[in-house]
């Protein structure tokens, strides 16, 4: 799949907020409507507080070795909390927005030892904490749903499913799908608030956690259909950016007055054929399902689509066989005729409130049809019946653990949204792991925690053949590590999937400690690449050794490339907008160089002009 991220801003009513159009593009169209961004050029999106602990900054730096250290820099776009020593002088921050059901995504950055939290509706907290490298987790750790106030039937809190937290001073990503409590007409609560899913740095840390009462130190101890989003400000230094959300109410699109027709035989090439035919069956229906028809026939359902409010609607069709969706005779989605019922196809349509004619046509090859939509203030909802769609079979997880010795496992792995077919995963006792590509000889990703889920390789045929990291991954650029450059202005060679033969004498050796040393020869230079745990399991140290017949003077290594690379006050480097640190660089000539190439920053080291040398650095996350 292809992912494209578009960012642009436009002014809306408040004059301060900014819409962040972050659509997920697939080759079959955008699979999501844009979320709304909370503007962080100023504090206008938030309720006014007298306390001064909240401010807008351009960026932040947290020295990861120093407790509660967080230093803002001038500018806009980042929300920073720097609590005063006296807790009483600090305030929590509330949005002007009041919400019920909500999908929320944001980036946050913790100071060392810091503590904060995000309270949905001001009441139900997802905990933020510097939980870096902690092995035993409880309800107070990063990604936890915190303890409730209800003393009689106390919600005890819910620890995160795994430790996905990164080092202090790095940006982390949080995604929450929240369902507000529901009340009947008399105001009596009929269902509890629920965290449907919480993802921390891409890992599922909470799933379907029901919360019976507001969290300790909530905005209020009562429960309501709506409430503001609250960011905790009285515990420790923290920064936020890219806060975006989709807020939902309970409006729904409705399908009415539906009539179906079934035409035996298949006319997938042209649906116009149907207009010339007499249906073999027809009737009225109040539910939409492919079961109205038969396999190897075409089903057409027409009816009225009652649209509750104006806005963009995104429709998704997943069907085993050609399927079309028309609204007012305009084709909104066509699935290209695929028989793959698991593949979604998308079409966006701007609709006003009111009634529209719709038609769905399905050439039934493999008896599966699902029509879903997302709308303004309406979450993804499926309009077809459950029985209309077949389920994709999923194996149970099969966990491959590392015990006393390191493990390696080759397989396919995802890297930047694509399958890498040459990956080797390395699991090291103590809970540190990485993945490496054995075609281009570069680091793909690294993660703290358990090793791999191998179910998609080793259950039945293992159709995806994917090995899946059991932890939050940090991804690297995947560019080759070493190259001979004609001066530091030359472009880094792009050798993704290097042609066979460019790298010679290649493979890996196993050291006595069970860790591999990767080796290859490129342009006459023998390279060895050894990766082992950094001090305190905080990350990995990489040692690249070069040997050549004669001294080489123009050998460089690319530490990595990413969106932005900055040298930090403690001498380390923050890479890819502070997704991880590079530090402890050794064995090179002169100064490390940060340069810009094609919109990416690159961190280059020049090797000493000798026949043999070794460069090393650590990657901390």
């Amino acid at each position, binding site marked *: 799949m292809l992912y494209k991220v578009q960012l642009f801003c436009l002014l809306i009513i408040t004059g301060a907020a900014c819409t962040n159009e972050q659509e997920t593009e697939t080759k079959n169209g955008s699979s999501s409507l844009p979320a709304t961004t909370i503007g962080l050029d100023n504090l206008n999106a938030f309720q006014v507080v007298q306390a001064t602990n909240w401010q807008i900054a351009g960026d932040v730096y947290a020295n990861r070795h120093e407790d509660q250290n967080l230093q803002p820099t001038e500018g806009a776009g980042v929300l920073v909390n720097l609590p005063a020593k006296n807790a009483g002088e600090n305030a929590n921050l509330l949005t002007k927005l009041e919400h019920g059901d909500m999908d929320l995504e944001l980036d946050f950055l913790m100071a060392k030892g810091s503590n904060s939290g995000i309270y949905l509706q001001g009441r139900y907290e997802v905990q933020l904490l510097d939980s870096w490298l902690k092995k035993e987790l409880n309800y107070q750790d990063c990604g936890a749903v915190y303890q409730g106030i209800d003393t009689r039937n106390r919600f005890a809190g819910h620890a995160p499913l795994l430790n996905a937290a990164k080092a202090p001073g790095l940006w982390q990503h949080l995604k929450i799908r929240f369902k507000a409590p529901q009340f009947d007409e008399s105001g009596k609560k009929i269902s509890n608030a629920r965290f449907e899913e919480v993802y921390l740095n891409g890992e599922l840390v909470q799933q379907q956690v029901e919360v019976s009462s507001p969290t300790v130190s909530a905005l209020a101890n009562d429960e309501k259909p709506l409430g503001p989003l609250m960011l905790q400000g009285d515990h420790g230094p923290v920064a936020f950016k890219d806060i975006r959300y989709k807020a939902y109410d309970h409006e729904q699109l409705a399908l009415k007055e539906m009539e179906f027709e079934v035409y035996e035989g298949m006319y997938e090439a042209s649906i116009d054929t149907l207009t010339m035919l007499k249906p073999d069956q027809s009737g009225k229906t109040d539910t939409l399902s492919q*079961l109205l028809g*038969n*396999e*190897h026939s075409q089903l057409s359902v027409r009816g009225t689509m009652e649209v509750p409010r104006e806005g963009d609607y995104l429709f998704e069709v997943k069907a*085993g066989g050609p399927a079309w969706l028309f609204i007012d005779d305009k084709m909104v989605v066509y699935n290209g005729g695929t*028989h793959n019922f698991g593949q979604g196809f998308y079409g966006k349509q701007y609709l006003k409130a009111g009634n529209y004619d719709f038609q769905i046509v399905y050439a039934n*090859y*493999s*008896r599966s049809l699902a029509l879903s939509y997302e709308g303004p203030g309406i979450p993804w909802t499926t309009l077809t019946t459950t029985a209309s769609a*077949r389920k994709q*079979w999923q194996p*149970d*997880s*099969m*966990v*491959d*653990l590392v*015990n006393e010795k390191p*493990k*390696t*496992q*080759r*397989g*396919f792995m995802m890297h930047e949204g694509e*399958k890498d*077919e*040459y990956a*080797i995963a390395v699991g090291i006792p103590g809970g540190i792991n990485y993945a490496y590509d*054995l*075609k281009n000889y570069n680091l793909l990703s690294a993660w703290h925690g358990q090793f791999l889920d*191998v*179910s998609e*390789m*080793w*259950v*039945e*045929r*293992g*159709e*995806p*053949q994917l090995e899946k990291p059991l932890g939050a991954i940090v991804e690297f650029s995947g560019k080759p590590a070493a190259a001979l450059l004609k001066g530091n202005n030359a472009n880094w060679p792009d050798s993704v*999937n290097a042609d*066979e*033969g460019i790298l*010679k*004498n*290649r*493979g*890996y*050796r*196993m050291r006595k400690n069970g860790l*591999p040393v990767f080796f290859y020869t490129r342009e006459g230079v023998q390279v060895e690449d050894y990766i082992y745990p950094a001090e305190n399991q905080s990350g990995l140290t990489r040692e690249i050794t070069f040997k050549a017949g004669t001294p080489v003077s123009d050998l460089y290594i690319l530490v990595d490339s990413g969106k932005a690379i900055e040298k930090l006050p403690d001498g380390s480097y923050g890479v890819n907008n502070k997704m991880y640190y590079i530090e402890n660089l050794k064995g090179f000539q002169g100064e490390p160089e940060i340069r810009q190439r094609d919109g990416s920053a690159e961190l280059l080291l020049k090797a000493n002009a000798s026949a043999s040398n070794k460069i090393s650095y650590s990657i901390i996350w």
Partner: protein
Amino acid sequence: MKMNVPYSLNILLLLCLTCSVFAQQSSDQAAKESAFYAIKDVPIPDDVILEVGGLAFTDDDQLGVATRHGEIWMIDRPYSAQPKYNLFASGLHEPLWLSYRNGAFYTTQRSELTKLTDTDHDGSADLYQTIYSWPLSGNYHEYSYGPLFLPNGDMLVTLNLSWIGHGASLRKWRGWMLKITEDGKMEPFATGLRSPAGFGVNAEGDIFYAENQGDWIGSGRITHLEKGDFAGNPEGLRWSGEPNSPLNLKMDMIPDSVGLMYDFAKEIPSLKIPTVWFPHTIMGISTSAILSIDNDVFGPFKGQLLVGDQGHSKVMRVFLEKVNGEYQGACFPFREGFSSGILRMAWGSDHSLFVGMTSRGWASTGPEDYGLQRLMYNNKMPFEMKAIRATSNGFEIEYTQPVDPKTASNASAYQVTGFTYSYHSSYGSPIINQEGCAIVKAEVMDGNRKVRLYVSGLREGYIHELKAPGVKSLQGNALLHKVAYYTLNNLPEGEGMDHDMMVAQEQNQGNTGNATACGADPAKNVTTQPADWANGPDITITIGTKPGLKYDLEQIEVPEGSKVKLTFNNNDDMLHNLVITNPGKGDEVGKKAMEMGLDGAQLAYVPQSEDVLFNTCLLQPETSESIYFVAPKAGDYTYVCTFPGHYLNMRGMMKVTGRASASGD
């Protein structure tokens, strides 16, 4: 039992559930064969998942076993009751072969040819070298096999096609056999391959590869491959325009439906016709390893080939001869009853045959998920057709023991039937153009060791089934295996017969195959809604498949007397049907289907039986069919896929419940 396997144990538990089924199904034939060739388990420790991908003996007679979980185990004393297992290497990506040469192991992973060496001699590999790697699309079906060493040290590997609803070559050299040198030089060797899991050389060093039924492949077969050959599946031709391609045949020269491959090959010189066909479901369903019998200790068949079968857990035997400069010959049943799906075979130093097995994802009649067994000759001569040679006007059968001249010279002791398969893009083929041949005369020769059969109606390019049910040995024994299949690509020159005139018209007349036949009884395969179901079906059920030869619904429930519309959706990549049987009769019907022989394909493998209540057709991959029936009286009715070999796994239960209340009808 010690179990320190870190991952889920579902697979092992499943095994035990099927143990009892295995006991029942171990056939009479296997029992007869065991008097001559004994199968013995090589014990596997409880904590080793030995899904065999490759077998190779080292110089010091340890057995190396590559597994689908990426391990290489070294088995010391594999001939003993207590072999010792030592983990030599791990972390490989589904290695499906193992070779040993000059102190190192060689294997293919999905993406590359790898050499593994224990440089410090501590018993485990410490050097993993990539000799050559190839592009992949990431599709699960891109299995890679090899290397097979040629005498000069060059290696052969083969690359499966991807599966995207049909076989496809999505990346360069999928569907090819490649020749690779130790220093990583690659030469594309031959193409037209679909699922080339097994290949080997005969005593002369000529290369044969085994192919499985699939798109463009009517039935299993082995084909002699030489440089530049095109073996039939056109997908690999996508790369024939590459500068190093040894042939320039293009995909568009192969129409979707060709007719007979043998005739088409006259127009397309690079098209290599199969050397020996293995009729589908009769001689296995998925040919795998090919191994030449290099010794006399294993029995009387030195110089012949053994061919394993993954789905039917058996080993078959091949006699080859050269006629007009081309290999052709016959395949024979040899030994069935192995414990899992046979993928690899290797000779032990004592000339016993080691058989390595796995059935995960590709079910086998041997019910275990994996296994390692040995086949040993008991030094008791079986009475077999040892060899069949073509003559200008019939066949010469050589026996392992002197025949009883009276029965063996009786022409009616033999039956010969010719047939072939269609060469087309769809999956598999029914048997076509089936016609009986008349046996004119049978002459006993060479001191009762041989019989010369004069046969009319032989056809070049056809498979000839040769049955000898009436022949007895001098000692009065019947043949251990009474049937063989000779692929007659070339009739030797010499005195012929007027075939056309003498074709035995009375035999098998009109039995010419029918791709859409759906069992013997159309009443059991009602595919349109009965006219009297005014309100349509009471119940609509859809059953699909899931990986590993299973239905996605293994229990359905319908009330007695209800009108049922049952849709079977074959979303797998193989042929399947769905047959509802009387309570407790699933196994019996499944077994009967396996015994249908040449007629099976024409009847969708639905045997004629009162225990078959309702059935679908045999469905191509990615097709579906609905059948309509009225639910029988209350009870638990088994439904099975009767495609030979599937019924042990692919089954479910239709629970018919009693009527809830007396309704008016």
